[in-house]
């Protein structure tokens, strides 16, 4: 059991961070603090995605520079592609678990790269997080101007008072 957890300690840490964020959102009464908790929760989810895509010994997914001149660009691209296929085949037989894994092991040239797809997804999620945060803060500023407070208990009391006053008229 400990061995399983030890191999996945990054996910354990990320889950604890996510729960801290969720706790901050639910526990606080202050509207700004709740938004801070929300962005903490979202940032931790980004960490979950990115740790998923990490490959040990891998490099950032930026391929080697190969556009010295446009002349031999396609030649190089062709050769790079050729290099990829034979390297992949060669890497396949030396890769320790090649037998168990049906598909060929995908390496580009001789270097191993981390998985670029989670990075793209998280670039989108960061922007969504900031967009939600800015609309939330705009609402908090308007609430403060019309209610005079940003504590949700005080706001509920104010609403309840207005309701009961209106009901008696």
């Amino acid at each position, binding site marked *: 059991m400990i061995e399983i957890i030890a191999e996945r300690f990054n996910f354990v840490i990320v889950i604890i961070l996510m729960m801290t964020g969720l706790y901050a*959102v639910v526990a606080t009464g202050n509207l700004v603090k709740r938004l801070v908790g929300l962005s903490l929760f979202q940032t931790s989810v980004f960490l*979950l995605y990115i740790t*998923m895509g990490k490959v040990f010994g891998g490099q950032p997914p930026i391929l080697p520079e190969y556009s010295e001149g446009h002349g031999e660009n396609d030649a190089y691209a062709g050769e790079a592609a050729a290099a990829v296929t034979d390297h992949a085949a060669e890497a396949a037989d030396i890769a320790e678990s090649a037998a168990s894994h049906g598909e060929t092991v995908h390496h580009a040239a001789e270097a191993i790269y981390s998985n670029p797809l989670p990075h793209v997804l998280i670039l989108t*999620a960061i922007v969504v997080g900031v967009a*939600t945060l800015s*609309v939330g803060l705009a*609402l908090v500023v*308007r609430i403060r101007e019309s209610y005079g407070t940003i504590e949700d208990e005080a706001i509920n009391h104010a609403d309840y008072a207005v309701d009961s006053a209106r009901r008696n008229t």
Partner: protein
Amino acid sequence: MEFLASLLPASLVTHAPAIIVVTPLMMAAVAAIMPNGRLGWAVTLISTIVSALLALAIIVDVQTGGVVSYAMGGWAPPAGIEFRIDGLNAVLLMVIGALGLLSVIYALPSVADEIEEKKQSLFYSAFLVCFAGLIGVAITGDAFNMFVFLEISSISTYVLVGMGASSDRRALTAAYNYLVLGTIGATFFVIGVGFLYMATGTLNMADMATRLPDLSDSRVVQAAFAFIIVGLGLKAAMFPLHLWLPNAYAYAPNFVTSFLASTATKVAFYTLVRFLFDVFWPEAPFVEVSFLWVFAILGIIGMIVASVQAVFQDDARRLLAFSSVGQVGYMMLGLGMGTAAGLSAGMLHLINHSMMKGALFMALGAFAIRFGIRRISDLNGFARSMPFTSVAFTIGGLSLVGVPMTVGFWSKWYLGVAALENGWWWAVAALILSSLIALAYVARMLAAIWVAEPHHDKAGAIAHARAPWLMLGPLWVLAIANVWFFFQPDFLISMANAAAEAAFSGGAR
């Protein structure tokens, strides 16, 4: 309908899935820089007409040619993003296109009355972004792209609800609570999609479906299922997760409530159906147990509890908002049966409910534009001065109860038949009980309109008021639709059956 679709040039129809989403998005950018509200409304009207026509063309394409698939950017599905339309989301396209168009025609006087002049064109732009987001969620075949469109429609919805603050400050707190709960729901959905990606390695829903059956014992997939159901349940206002809906619908501008009530929860319900039937493997043990315990039981509790809460409401729109939560319970019951008959009854109710609630909220908006009504007692004696609106409201109310001669009857009928086929007599009992409770709160409002004497101070003003034509037109189109589709139900029923059959045939059968 084929005639209408043949109007469009063939090349346009092949790219229809892309254009139907892109037109509102780009028109939203154009509407934002319009100098005044009327121009903004004109741009919005043109864009919704184009989208409605394209929705028609796609529906005809789906009926003739089965699944319509469109690869974005020309990249094949697992690498690129794919738009995938089958019988299931064709129904959604029809509902969003038709209701969006009717709401926009309805919008001009209602928005002019409630939003200040300077902000109207921005308001229309936000509406167009929400409209495009809902269509995007309905069409896309890529899990993460569905999250992006869910966020597009949600962020613009928070803003639209918040714009109700010019008439009632509680719209701000309603929008804030909706934002926090909506974002938690969306983040749970992202966690679920992340786990699915971790288990299957792909983001395309059809591709995921082929890989999930042999992963059904993996705990990552089970956790993904739990998170996706909670996330989408929050968006669809499923019973225990519906706390944001009553305030959001009660304090938003009238136009926003009438549009959201008839489309937003429906799209979220569609995403639940899509994930349950076409992505996860329905025969997997953890999915099968959820049909009864999560969807059917919660749906029934939601039906009864929300309807009871609706009876005791004082604010007219809050009453209808609680009734909407109850109606979502009906759809969940249809989904929970897990049979084709049950799902098609659920989809039929989805279509009918969008017509009923659209008519009811539009009628309330028409009442409000003259007298800014808030409480039910403000509705007293409106039948004398606004007969057209009152009759339309009555038809909508009766359809909500499920009285014969209105379309609500068929959805209750098919739900009952599907429940009996399933042997769930207790579901039929719950259906009848919640219809009786619905009769209680609808009767309460109709009594106020038809029977009660108008308040003495407003008696004079009430005598000669009438809603503007632009509002009565869409209202009466929906009221007539409520009755017309009672006598000609086969079109809607064929769409609902096609949706159920598409859901059952999709995924890894």
